[in-house]
């Protein structure tokens, strides 16, 4: 089926909860109402004319400067090993307190993709069986792929971002690492930094 046909089919079934098709560049997609994404996903896989049985990719995108409304998007790229067609679904979520129903039940691979989106963007997938951080350490604070991310100064008491003074000394070619790190008064509370 062509993307336009898939879109018509989805709109027949779900009405105004599916908006599209919106064609930007080469990949057409529809925007689905967030609450209904799990239903739409299950339909996409089960319907004999669609059989979108493969989730190619699940990505999140942070769009804080979007004109109409600052938001985050979750993009589902789908593929069918029966009909060999491709399609994409998108959901729009608010930037703070984003919650999206999980599609783990439909495509097994969504489990890890959703954990990654949670880890790097802070999007909570409701009903997910195991929503933990996946790439970053368990005790990491914040979600680094958000556009408003700033690097932390400390991680577990270790200075991870050089101060301006340290950066200056490094630029001058002075030894970086041992000197500034060891004698930095800001780092005095770190065990072993005084030796």
């Amino acid at each position: 089926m062509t993307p336009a046909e898939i879109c018509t089919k989805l709109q027949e079934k779900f009405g105004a909860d599916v908006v599209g098709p919106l064609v930007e560049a080469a990949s057409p997609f529809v925007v689905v109402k967030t609450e209904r994404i799990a239903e739409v996903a299950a339909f996409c896989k089960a319907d004999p004319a669609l059989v979108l049985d493969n989730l190619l990719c699940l990505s999140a995108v942070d769009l804080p400067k979007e004109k109409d409304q600052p938001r985050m998007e979750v993009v589902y790229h789908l593929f069918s090993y029966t009909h060999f067609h491709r399609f994409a679904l998108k959901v729009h979520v608010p930037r703070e307190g984003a919650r999206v129903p999980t599609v783990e039940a439909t495509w097994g691979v969504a489990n890890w993709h959703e954990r990654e989106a949670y880890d790097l963007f802070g999007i909570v997938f409701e009903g997910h069986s195991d929503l933990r951080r996946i790439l970053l350490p368990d005790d990491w604070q914040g979600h680094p792929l958000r556009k408003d991310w700033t690097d932390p100064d400390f991680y577990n008491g270790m200075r991870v971002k050089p101060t301006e003074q340290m950066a200056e000394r490094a630029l001058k070619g002075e030894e970086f690492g041992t000197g500034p790190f060891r004698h930095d008064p800001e780092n005095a509370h770190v065990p072993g930094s005084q030796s």
Partner: protein
Amino acid sequence: MSAGITRPVTSAESVGWRIDDIGPDEMILSMGPQHPSTHGVLRIELITDGELVREARPHIGYLHRCFEKHCENVDYPGVIPYTDRLDYVASMGNSLGYALAVEKLLAIEPSPYVQTIRVIMAELQRIASHCVAVGTYGMDLGAFTPFLHLLRDREKILDVFEWTCGARLLYNYNWIGGLSHDVPDGFVRACREIVAEFDKVTWPELVNLLIGNRIFIERTAKVGVVSRELAISYDLTGPNLRGSGVAYDLRKAEPYCGYENYEFAVPVGEGRHGPLGSCFDRNWVRVVEMKESARIISQALDRLEKLEKTDVREKVPKRAKPAKGEVFARSEAPRGNLGYYVVADGTAVNPYRVKVKSPCFTAMSAFHHVARGVMIADIIALIGSFDVVLGEIDR
């Protein structure tokens, strides 16, 4: 055993396992991250009952280098050296995938000469990468000799890469719209020698020493069976998918770089020594695929000789700044379908967002399913058969 569980459980709680999850006769075994057969820094927590694995939980992220964050801070061509470092065993395939994605955004079509060189490089890389994959797999199972033979032959391919672009592992070769260097004089002859030797020596040796070996077959043919449905649900691709009997290859299905002009077969697992989709089938597919790659290289070399030489940097844009839009492009890397989702905002010279769909990441996400109920020793056979490279999983 119940007295012994106090310590493991404290570590288990931090990763979400409760005390009730572990039976009185069971223990938690942490495998990795410094285990030689985990192919990198992968840690797997196993709940074991004696030698049997009841539950396996992979932990990744030890090699996370913020690839996607870096991409947002460099310009489009600047991403290419980073892509090399994803799957460092098959760098040519990574940069090719990214170049194809950005070329779609910029609507650039490289000349047939460039595309033919890309095909040759990608297929040479496929052979080199499968040499490592199958070789180390044999080594995991205790067969040391085939590994040495395969690395010896991979070396010749790396020599050609070094001769062409100066690097042996991380090439920065496939640029957006072109290549970093033209092939040197005598390149075609050197490649023909490699292919001839591969057909005459490497391949028969590999089949006789490893794949046809009774011990190897017994060790792998009934282990780690992945059904077609599981493979598709967990987005296994490349040799892992074809090992389960799905004849899907992007080079045939959605040809890029002119793959439609070459004659080659898509090998699939046949389940000839056990159930379909076993560890043996996945490796069998890799081995046959190497032979097909050699066929493609021969044809591409013939084409290259006839083609008119063009400047390989002719279409490399001076300043890559695509219009607002997005693209999801896939290519058949040695480990499966490598997808790049690139979003351009139309105002900046750096990508707004790059997401990599790594074939190893998705293969590893199916691991806990396949690992249920196997022996600890077979976990080793299982990890290797998926041919994961941790650089690509953790990015």
